[in-house]
């Protein structure tokens, strides 16, 4: 299984490099994402996944944090089939903020709803964990212009390969620092997609800390690049600073989980 996924990943890279264009590269943009990932256990194998991103975009004068970019709410029901496989189904409500705040033709905030489902394959190794995530999003997207833009349906095909490698130990457990390299390719399709199939390629590295089984956090830098929707030869580029927290709470009814222990001396 792990070898199979590795072949897909390498094959994808080859295809990307095989598309020979005269690419143009946009100036490197900067973003900052503050993310809160939450999972609430509601049954033995069922979690309510709730993510919220607070995203800002930078400018030349004020890199990373200049203005609001998106607020992003992703919810879903995550069913953990086994420790090696789980899937999630849910919806996303993304609030996009106008790219030009002073432009009255643009909506200051407009929504982008999505339906999404993802499939996560977990490969445990003795000293690290390896994850392959396939996420498919069905979204209704429109531009910021008030009058012209209409919602257009499209699909996103995301494949994310990432690892979590403990630094100060061999296991991911409370008190562990880990490093997590990640690569995600996001493809898109839809009626309005002409040539710009590669929406984003995200290369992300972060260092995380597991403070408890319920709370972790990470800090990292992500480089992304992808085709412009309207000009496939134009590649956008961004450096994104990401600070994320991962919270997991058990909402199940409290029950006696601790067996009685008989002590004798």
């Amino acid at each position, binding site marked *: 299984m792990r070898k199979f996924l590795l072949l897909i990943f390498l094959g994808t890279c080859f295809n990307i490099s095989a598309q020979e264009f005269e690419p143009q590269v946009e100036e490197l943009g900067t973003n900052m994402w503050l993310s809160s990932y939450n999972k609430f256990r509601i049954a033995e194998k069922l979690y309510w996944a709730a993510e919220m991103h607070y995203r800002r975009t930078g400018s030349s004068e004020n890199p990373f944090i200049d203005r609001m970019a998106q607020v992003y709410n992703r919810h879903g029901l995550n069913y953990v089939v086994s420790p090696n496989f*789980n899937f999630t189904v849910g919806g996303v409500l993304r609030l996009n903020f106008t790219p030009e705040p002073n432009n009255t033709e643009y909506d200051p905030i407009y929504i982008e709803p999505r339906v999404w489902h993802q499939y996560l394959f977990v490969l*445990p190794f003795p000293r690290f964990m390896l*994850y392959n995530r396939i996420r498919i999003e069905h979204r209704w997207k429109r531009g910021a212009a008030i009058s012209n833009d209409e919602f257009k349906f499209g699909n996103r095909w995301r494949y994310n390969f990432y690892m979590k490698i403990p630094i100060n130990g061999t296991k991911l457990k*409370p008190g562990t620092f880990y490093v997590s390299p990640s690569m995600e390719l996001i493809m898109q399709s839809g009626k309005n997609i002409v040539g710009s199939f590669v929406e984003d390629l995200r290369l992300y590295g972060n260092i995380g800390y597991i403070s408890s089984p319920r709370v972790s956090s990470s800090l990292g830098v992500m480089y992304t690049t992808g085709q412009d929707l309207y000009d496939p030869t134009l590649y956008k580029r961004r450096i994104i600073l990401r600070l994320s927290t991962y919270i997991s709470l058990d909402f199940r009814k409290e029950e006696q989980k601790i067996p009685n222990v008989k002590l004798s001396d």
Partner: protein
Amino acid sequence: MVTHNRFIIVLIIIVINATLLNGQNIQSYDSSYTINNIKYLAKYEFYISGNDTIYDGEFELSQQFENQEDIHEYLSVEGSFIENRADENWKLKKGAFEPTGKGYYKNYTYSYDVNGHEFMAEGKFLAGKKTGEWRIYDWQIRNSKITDTTLTATINFKEDEAQGNFRLQINEDVLEGELEKNEMTKGIWSFYRMNENGNRKLVKEWVFEDNTLVAMRLRRNDQVEEIKIHYPGKNDLSGKIIPLDDEFLEIIELKARIFNEKLLEKYKEEDKISNLYFTLLDNLDLVDKTFSPITKSTIKPTISSKLLASNIKADEESLLKKLKYNYEANQLKTKTLLDNPQINIASLSTKKVELYRNVLQKINQNFLIPTKEILSLYDDNQLKFFERDELIQYKIKLTDKETINGLINSDSLSEDYQFQSDLSFLKNSTDSNLFKLSAFMESIEKELNSINENLRGYIAEIQNEEKLVELEDAMLVKYEKIKTLADSLITGEHDNFARIDVAQAIKDFANSELEIYSNLATPDDKINVIESLITCFSKAEELIYTIQKSTESIYKINEAYTKEVFNPYTFTNMEEKSKPSIYKAFNKLILPSIFKNMRTLNCDNLEAYKANFKILFDEMIILLNESSTNRMERKVKRAKTAEKAAEILEMELSF
């Protein structure tokens, strides 16, 4: 005519009687004959009357056999009966011989000379009664000839009783005496010794007056010493008949000693008169053994004598009973003390115990044994033959306290010992010696009680010392065991929990307690604490076992407080502590502290420190299962010391 008729009648009667006598049909018997399960050859004449065999005529009995040592033994009896009554001469021969030399042919027979000895008794019966002189001999035979007469005795009988003179000679010793009616002693019994020339020399005499032995005379070098048997002038004495046997001689011996101790000792070697007397009786017994089943008569006389006696009076009876009671109690006490192995062993090492043991032996030897002898005379009904005051004075010198002390102080060991009880009554001349002895026996009882008390004190002291040695051995075993257990059962794992060297702390405790014990000044101090120290060390052993098993409990608590939580980001299970602040207080503060207690361990806090482990582990489980611990958890987070944490968590621990 009448005379003629009478003659004819007498003649007819005689004829008829003669006819009847012929009708008795005298028969002869010549075959084996069994007496007392011994088979003899017998030859005799008899007739049958009804169902009875009536001996009448000659009687011969003989026996000859070869014993296991190839010695020929023989016995023969010759005599005669008239209508079953021994009559006329009877002779008994009894001997043993073995052939000697090569033998010779004579009168168509091959014969040998013999060596051996022969005993012979002969005498006369008259109508079944012994009469006249009876003679007894014992000869040594060499080459079929009498070479030596080792025993010659003659004794006269009258009307079946020994009466008149008797004489006995065994080798060179001769006893001559006289008996009168009823076989009573009479006159003077003399003991001679024959010299090589056949002259005899008087050595000793028993003097009987009115059948009563009144004196014994000893002769040496023409000097005559008279041994008194009684004090003269006693009016309440009366002659009592007593068989002249061993008992009689013992009484005479004692009576003689009471008055003539030194004299009797001087002539002790001459005192063979009783031996001769009894040899005579033994030989007569030998004759009777064979004769009496046949002759229905015994040769051995029942010789009696008289002794002066004074009956025991009522007050004497009372004193004797009291004396006996006290004697038995004292004798038992003395025996118990002398047989006590602890006293015997202690006497080897402790001078005082040796002294008391020696005094006990002297009391037994000088007072109790003589008292026992006096009481034996009383029990055997012989005390009446003795003058009691003299007897008691002879047995025990009841003069005064100094005399009593003198008897006890007769050796260097007990030379300083003083009789504790008041013995002033000994000087009271109006009291009888029996009264004094009875009172003295009570004094001995007090003395024995005092000695017993003293000995018990010494023994208790010795026992304490022995006990201390035993207890110290036991304590040292415990001490060594603590060290061994600490080294073997307490490991580095415990040290990790405790953050100290736990085994060393416990060994230091044992060393410290042992040092405190060793520094105690006296055995009494030590005996007071050693048992509690042993108990303490025993508890220390239990503590070590508790500590050894504590790891198991610690791991159980760790496990109980640990739950696995599935992390939905890493998709791995992670461990998480329940009630982490409580667990942290347990793990970081309280547990190390109760281990660190071992550094201040002593016998007083040991039990509490041992209990800490159980209390802590039990409380931790209770807290885990308790739902409302939120407030406690918040408070315990701020606790800096184990004492504070234990207080917050409501654990009654000792630090």
